[in-house]
Every structure is written in C-alpha cells, then in structure tokens.
C-alpha cells in the first residue's frame, strides 16, 4: 500500500495513542525502525500486520480504530494540508459529497500511484446519500466514515453516518443530512496562509 496511507496510520497511532504505542506496533509488525516513508510503496501485508498489532495493543475493535483514523486525518492540525485538499471538493457539504466520485481521480492528479477505493454516490428519497465504496483494503469504509463525519463538522453540517452494508470488496456508507448549516463550520480560503 502507498506510503502516504501507511504514514498516516503511523502518525495517527503516534499522535493519538503515543509514541510508545507506535514503537510497539512497529516492532511487532516488523516495520523499519525509521517508520514509513510517505513517498514509497509497501507490501499490503505490512499494513495489515500494523493494523493487527494496533488492534491487539489498544484492545479496541478494528472498526473503531479505523474510524478514529478517518476523523484524525481531517481534524488534526498537523494534517491541515489534507483537510484543505478535501475542501477543494465543494463550497458546501452537499457539493462536497457530490464531488466524492471524483476523489480517486483527484488524488491521482496529486500522487499518480495513489490507489483509493472507487466511490459511487446514490441519493435516496429522504434526501440522504449512500456512498458505495469498492476496492481498497478491508475496513477502508470505516476510515471513510470517520473522514466524512469530521468533514460534515468542518463544513458546519449535522449528519448521521453509518456503514450499512458490508460485503467482500465493497461496503456502503449512508449519510442522513439533518441540517446543512447547523453551525458556522471552519473557514476555508482558496489560498493557504503563507
């Protein structure tokens, strides 16, 4: 898996659960002591070993760790660059959701060898949205759920999210929008502060 994703997991474990936790997980999983390099690619098995070691160490369900990872990616101040890139998707949370189909292509514009799961959007009759997530590694839908929850908050929208269907190689995340302007949300300007 791409180093960006592995490095994201590493930073999440470090920042959220402490450096000691990461050192332990890295040792058990057999990660190089220097950690992951964001711009290199690693075997999928290594990522799997890291996640397994994290589940064992933290004694938390894998789904919960992955969802926290998603939230972390959007909301941690050190990863502001990623939040900003996501916010280019649209001016409102709904616009953003409608841009999700393009997300893998957008990611590839920035990093040509970055493979993200395919996302397919469907609206239901009650104004809710279902996102079908295909490909990617097992449990990636929980990362997506965490990211979307944090992004809803970022845009100031109130939404209820759930992973509703899980099958081999695919899953669906449902989003019910309760209020698109629940609070002010965080600001986004097209050009980053210099």
């Amino acid at each position, binding site marked *: 898996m791409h180093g960006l994703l592995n490095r994201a997991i590493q930073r999440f474990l470090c920042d959220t659960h402490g450096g000691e936790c990461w050192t332990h997980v890295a040792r058990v999983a057999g990660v190089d002591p220097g950690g992951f390099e964001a*711009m290199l690619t690693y075997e999928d098995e290594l990522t799997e070993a890291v996640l397994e070691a994290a589940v064992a160490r933290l004694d938390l369900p894998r789904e919960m760790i992955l969802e926290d990872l998603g939230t972390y990616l959007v909301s941690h101040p050190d990863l502001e660059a990623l939040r900003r890139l996501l916010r280019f998707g649209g001016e409102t949370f709904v616009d953003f959701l409608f841009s999700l189909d393009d997300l893998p292509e957008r990611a590839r514009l*920035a990093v040509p060898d970055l493979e993200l799961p395919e996302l397919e959007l469907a609206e239901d009759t009650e104004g809710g949205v279902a996102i079908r997530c295909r490909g990617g590694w097992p449990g990636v839908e929980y990362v997506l759920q965490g990211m979307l929850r944090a992004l809803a908050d970022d845009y100031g929208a109130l939404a209820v999210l759930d992973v509703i269907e899980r099958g081999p190689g695919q899953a669906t995340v449902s989003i019910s929008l309760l209020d698109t302007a629940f609070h002010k949300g965080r600001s986004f300007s097209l050009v980053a502060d210099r």
Partner: protein
Amino acid sequence: MTGAARQGGAIMLDGAVLGRLLPMHLCLDAEGRVRQAGPTLERIAGTELAGRPFAEVVSLRRPAAATDIAGLLALAGRPLKLTLAVAPALPLKGLVAGLPDGGALIDISMGISLIEAVSRFDLTLGDFSPSDLAVELLYLHEAKSVVSAELSRLAERLNGARVSAEKEAATDTLTGLANRRRLDATLARLLGQGRAFALMQIDLDYFKLVNDTHGHDVGDAVLREVAHLLRAQCRTQDLVARVGGDEFVMILVDIVEPFRIARIAERLIRQIEEPIPVGMRECRISASIGVSVFSRQDSPDPKRLMREADCALYQSKGAGRARVTVFTRPEGAADNTDAA
C-alpha cells in the same frame, strides 16, 4: 429557459445569467462605457463599474493598447494581455467580441496570475464559474506543494543516510580518524588538483610494549590519545589517518619546506613522548616519522609518495627512533635523503 431567449440568430442573455457564466466579463455599450460587469470583477475592483469608460477599468497591453471602442473592436477574437486599474502589476488574459449594437463583450481570465489574484482579493469557490478549471488549478498547485515538500523531506533523509554511511565507511572506528580509504581519496584529490603537500608517515615506538604489558584496553586508550594529539596539530585542510595498528599518516597541505616539516614533526614527537595517563598508569611511547613531499612539478603518483615516505621512515627507525627524516629526490642534491 429562464434568462435566455432566441431572437433571430442571436441568443439574448440576461445580466445575472451572463454574470454566472462569465463572472469576470465587461459588457460595453457603443460608446465604450460599462453597461454591466461580472460579479467577480466588481468584487476585485471593489466598486460598481457600470457607467465607467472601459479604459478606466482595464488597460490593454498586447497585442496593442486600446482606449476607445473602435480600437477595442479591432482586437476582437485575438488573445489579449491586459491588466486591471486596481492591480496594474497583475497580468491577465482576455478576449473581446463585438456585439450587434456596436458595443463589445470582454471576458477576462486570471491566467497564470490565478494564485496571486485569489490570495490578494480573497476569492472563494463561488467567485468562479463551476465550469472554470481555475479551482482545479488551485487544488493541483496546493497538492503539488504538499507532495514536493514530502519528496524533498525524503531526499533529505536519504542524503543524510548517504552522508553518514560514507563517513562511517571512511572512518577508523577506534580513534575517529580517517581510514586508509579516505586517505587514498584525499591523496587522489590533492594530486588531481596539483596542490603541494607533505605526506607524513608516523610510526609509534614502544607501543607493542604497552600492549603486551598492560593489555589491549590500555593500548587502545593510548592510540586514542595519540589521535587526539595529531588532530590538534591539524588545520581544517589537513588530514590525519590511522592506517595500521600503530601507524598514522598526516597530510599537511601547502607545507613543503623541509625545515618547517621537520619542526612540526619534532613537536609531534615531543608531545607523543609526554607520559600518557591511563587509569592509574602512565604509559611512555615515542614515534618515528618519515616524510615525502609533493610539489606541483612532480608527477602525481600516490604510490611513489607513499614509498618515499616509507623509505624516510625506515631511515628514522634505523637511526635510533624518535627521529624525523624528510625524503629528498636524487635529481636535486647528491644524497637521497636529508636527515633532520
């Protein structure tokens, strides 16, 4: 269809629709006055533009300046370079089209000034038409910055690893001095540059006795102390290497006069002969030194230089140790060597 109607062969658009389609347009009447302006353009100008002569709002730079409507219409269909009166240093792109009533429509784009313009006028997603690629360009610019920052961090880390690996590969682990490899590389470099230098072979005397009497740990401590003494005599351009158990080589750059070399070498021997305290003991050793000299007119042969220094060292040892010999070539004086 709201806001648009067909009339003959022309399409009529109302102002709001035109503004959404081309948020940076100027619609001019036959006198060259602004009839209406796109919302983003007005936002940038900071004021309402309607009624103003176009030349007060934009300045055409290429392919030609134009201040009246006739001049402007003459440029219709050609790629324009222009600036806004509020931002004369910000180059923009544009296109002019003639209108049936004798007026003109100018559409303006940020072109390559996009990033600066967005930051300067605090533009938002809503200031661009959704069909405009400007936002994708901003996204790409930002993504590229993030990725290249990550890549340069990677390059830095790899370079750090390379530098320390090279340093390790060229260092004697016991004393921290250069090793044979680095000595060879330095010799090759100096010979390549044609820089004059003295090559000093230093061989410790009575060191084997220290090792045999007090053991290797004490011997190692003595070697480290000698390394410290030698390093203290070096300038930054010089080099000290440990090339064998108790053999050292010093390269003194730009020093070729035998009397200067001899003075430096004798000082070194005196310092090495000072008792070296190791734990409760005091160790006494000495050193013999042989020197060869490379001057610009010599052929750059590292093997010969080492051989000559060896030969001089051998003479020092043979003359009773604790001595310095500077090798001199036969083509000069009668003697091969000049004992100092």
